[in-house]
C-alpha cells in the first residue's frame, strides 16, 4: 500500500504544477493576445497603437495583417515618411506603410510577402536601396540591436510564443493600454513612421559632419559587388515575383543627394550601381510584373540639399513624388533610356565639386 500512496502524492503534485503553469502562462498569453500591442491578430486594445521606429520590425507584420489596404509601401526609410492618406489621395486606393528603417532586402521581402498575401492587394511600391543588398541572402541588419523577428512574419500559428509569452510583450501591452506617451512614439495610424520633429530638412543640417573628400567616413558603408547584389535581390524577390504574378510591383531607386553619388565615386562604386540598374531593367523585362522607377537622376531633387535631413533622406514632398510616379507610371527606367539617364547622372556627378557643395550647404543656415 505504501508505494501507491507515495505515488499518488506526486501525481497530485504534477497536476498542481500543470494547473499553475496553465494559469500563469495562459494568463500572460491571454493578456498579450487581448491587448495585442503589435496588432498581429486585431487592432490594439483601446485603439491606441504606439508606433515606435525602434520596434518597427515587430509592428510591421501586424500592420500588414490587420490594416485595410490595396497599396503597400515597403523597403527602407526612403519611403517611410509619408502618410497613408497621401498615398490614398495620389493612387486612389487605401494604403499601408510597411517600410523599415535600414531594412535588408530579406526584411523588405518578408514585409512584401505579408502584403502580397493580404486580400485585396493590388500594388506594392518598394524602394531599392543599394545598402539593403549587402549581407547576402539573409541580408545585413542595420541600425538594430536585436535579431529580426522571423516568427512574426511566417504564417505558422505555432511559433508566436516569443511574442505571446515574454516580458517585453507584457511591458508593451501594459504601456499600450495604460502608459503615457513618450517622445519616440507616434499614435497616428495614418502616418506611423513620421520622421521625428528633431529631424530637420535643411542643407546645413544635411552636410553636418561630412568631410567632402572622404564622405563615407561619416557613414561607414561597405562596398558592394554586382554578383552579390544580384544574388541578394534574386534570392529574396524573385520567388515573390513568380508566386504573385498578378500584383504590380514598382521598385523605386530613391533620390540620394548628389553627395551620396560623390561618395560612390570616391569609392569607385558608380560602375557597380549603374550595372545593377541595367540588370534590374533586364529583370523587369523578363518578369513583366514589375517596373523600375528611377529618381536618382533627378537633378532638381538631388542637388537641392535643402530637401534633405542628411545626405540620404529627403522630406515627404519627395516621397510623394516617388509614389505619384509609381502610380502614374512616370520616371520608368527601361532599356531605351537607361544608358542616357545613367550618363546624365554621371555627368552631373563629374561636373560638380563636393567641396564646393558642402561649403555652400554649410553656409545655408536654415534658409529654406
Amino acid at each position, binding site marked *: 500500500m505504501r508505494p501507491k500512496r507515495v505515488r499518488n502524492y*506526486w501525481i497530485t*503534485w*504534477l497536476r*498542481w*504544477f500543470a494547473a499553475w503553469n496553465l494559469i500563469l*502562462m495562459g494568463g500572460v498569453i491571454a493578456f498579450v493576445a487581448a491587448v495585442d500591442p503589435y496588432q498581429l491578430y486585431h487592432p490594439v486594445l483601446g485603439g491606441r497603437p504606439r508606433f515606435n521606429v525602434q520596434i518597427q520590425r515587430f509592428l510591421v507584420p501586424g500592420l500588414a495583417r490587420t490594416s485595410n489596404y490595396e497599396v503597400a509601401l515597403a523597403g527602407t526609410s526612403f519611403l517611410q515618411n509619408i502618410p497613408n492618406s497621401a498615398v490614398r489621395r495620389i493612387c486612389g486606393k487605401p494604403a499601408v506603410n510597411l517600410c523599415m528603417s535600414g531594412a535588408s532586402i530579406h526584411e523588405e521581402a518578408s514585409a512584401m510577402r505579408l502584403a502580397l498575401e493580404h486580400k485585396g492587394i493590388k500594388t506594392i511600391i518598394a524602394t531599392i536601396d543599394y545598402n539593403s543588398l549587402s549581407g547576402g541572402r539573409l541580408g545585413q541588419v542595420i541600425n538594430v540591436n536585436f535579431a529580426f523577428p522571423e516568427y512574426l512574419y511566417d504564417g505558422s500559428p505555432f511559433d508566436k510564443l*516569443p511574442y505571446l509569452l*515574454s516580458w517585453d510583450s507584457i511591458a508593451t501591452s501594459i504601456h499600450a493600454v495604460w502608459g503615457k506617451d513618450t517622445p519616440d512614439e507616434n499614435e497616428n495610424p495614418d502616418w506611423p513612421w513620421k520622421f521625428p520633429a528633431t529631424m530637420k530638412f535643411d542643407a546645413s543640417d544635411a552636410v553636418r559632419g561630412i568631410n567632402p573628400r572622404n564622405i563615407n567616413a561619416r557613414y561607414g558603408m561597405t562596398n558592394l559587388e554586382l554578383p552579390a547584389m544580384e544574388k541578394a535581390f534574386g534570392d529574396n524577390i524573385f520567388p515573390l515575383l513568380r508566386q504573385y504574378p498578378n500584383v504590380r510591383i514598382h521598385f523605386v531607386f530613391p533620390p540620394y543627394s548628389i553627395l551620396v553619388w560623390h561618395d560612390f565615386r570616391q569609392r569607385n562604386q558608380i560602375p557597380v550601381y549603374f550595372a545593377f540598374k541595367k540588370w534590374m531593367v533586364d529583370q523587369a523585362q523578363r518578369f513583366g510584373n514589375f517596373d523600375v522607377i528611377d529618381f536618382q537622376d533627378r537633378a532638381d531633387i538631388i542637388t537641392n540639399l535643402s530637401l534633405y535631413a542628411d545626405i540620404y533622406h529627403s522630406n515627404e514632398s519627395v516621397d510623394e513624388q516617388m509614389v505619384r510616379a509609381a502610380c502614374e507610371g512616370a520616371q520608368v527606367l527601361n532599356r531605351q533610356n537607361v544608358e542616357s539617364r545613367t550618363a546624365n547622372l554621371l555627368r552631373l556627378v563629374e561636373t560638380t565639386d563636393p567641396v564646393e557643395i558642402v561649403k555652400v550647404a554649410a553656409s545655408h543656415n536654415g534658409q529654406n
Partner: protein
Amino acid sequence: MFFNSYEFLFGFLPAVCIVYFLLARFPRAGTWWMAAASFFFYAKYRLDDVALLIASILWNYLISHLIVRRGWKRGWLVLGIAVNLLTLAVFKYSKFWPAGMLHNLAFPLGISFFTFSQIAYLVDVYKGVDHPAPIRDYALFVSFFPHLLSGPILRHKEMVPQFDSAIRRRPIPRYFARGFSLIVIGLAKKILIADTLAPLVARTFDSAGPLDAATAWIGTTAYTFQLYNDFSGYCDIAVGVSFLFNIRIPENFRAPYRSTSIQEFWRRWHITLGKFLRNYIYIPLGGNRAGLFRQCLAVVITFTLGGLWHGAGWTFFIWGALHGIALTTQVLWRRFGFRLPHFAAWALTFAFVDLAWVVFRAPNLQALTRVLGAMFSGIPRMQLPAALSSVYPGYFALLAAILLVALPTYSFTIARRMKPAWWTAALAAMVLTTVVLRFSSVSYFLYYFF
C-alpha cells in the same frame, strides 16, 4: 536547439517524452527513437556537425569491437584515441595550427564532451571493465541529448544498462516531479542569475576602455557566479530532463564554492571531468603511488591538460597549471601537517578559485594583465560608490547568487527534499513562468563552446 528555448520546452521535450513512453513495449524502438531525437536536437543548431558526430560514433564503436575481438588490443586503443585527439586538434585547437591552416573550421558544439566520453569508453573496454553494447545503445549513449552539448561526461557502463531496462519505460511520477524541479532550478540559475550577471562581466573583460578597481573586482566576482550558475544550471536541466525518461545521469556540481580546499573544490566542481582526469590521466601517470615528486608532477600535468580541455589558449593553460600547483601545494601542506581554521580555509580556497577564474575568463593575456592590473594596482584609489552609481539588475543577481551559495542546500538537495505540496508546485510554476518570459532574449550556455 537549446534548453532555454520555447521550441525545446513546449515542442521537442513533450513530443519526445510522449513517444518514448508510447514505445514502452518496444524497448529497442524506444532506444532508437531517443537516439533519433538526439540527432535531431543536435542538428537543429548546425546540420553539418551531425556528420562529425555520426563518424565519431561509428569510429569508436568499431574500435571498441576491434579491441575486444582482435589481438592487437593496445594498438587499436592507441589508434582509436589518436583519431579522437586528432579530431579535437583539427576542430577545437585549430588556433594552435600554423596561420592559414584550418582557421575556417566551425567549432562543433559539445565536441569535447562526446569525444572524452568515448575515449573513456575505449579505455574501459581495453581494461575489460566495460564491453561493447548494441549500436543503438552506443549511439544513444554518445548522443543522448540532455548531456550532448555540455555534459556531464558520462560513462558507458553506467548509462547503457538503463537504456534497455523495460521497467524504466513507465512514467514514474516521483521522477517526473524531481525532473521538473531540477529543470526549473537550472533554468532559473541560467536565466535569472547567470544571464543577468553577463553585462557586469562583459563590462570588465570585453571592453577596451579604462577599468577601475571596483568595477574590475565586481566584474570578476560576477564571473565567478555567472560561470557557476550557467554551467551548473545546464547540468541541473540535463539531469532533470533525464529524470523525465527515468534515466539517471550523475550530478556534476555539489555547492563547489563552499569548499574548504582545492581538492574538495574539484570533488564538487565539474565532478565528471574531475573523475575523468583522475581515472584516465592522473592514475595512469602514477597517481599517489609513485612517490611525492611523481605525484606532484602528475597533478600539475593532469590539471594543465584539464585546462587545455577547455580550449586552445594560453589563459586555459595557465588556469589549469595554477590549479595543478595549488593542489600540489595542498598535498605538501597536508604532508607537513598544517591546518587552517575552517573559515580561513574556505576564504583562502574561494579567493584562489575566484582569482583563477579571472585567468580562465580573460580572452587573451593582454586582457588578463589589464584586468589584474586594475584589480590590484587600483585598490588605493578604489571608489566603490562610483562603480555602483548606476542601478543595475546585475548587482541584485550578484547578491542573490552570493546568498544562494551561502545557503546550506543546493539544486539536488532541494529537488530531493521537495514536499509534494500545492505550494511547492505553485512556486515551481511561478519560477518557470518567470524564466520562460525571458526566453525571447536568446543566450548561449557558456560551456557550449568548451
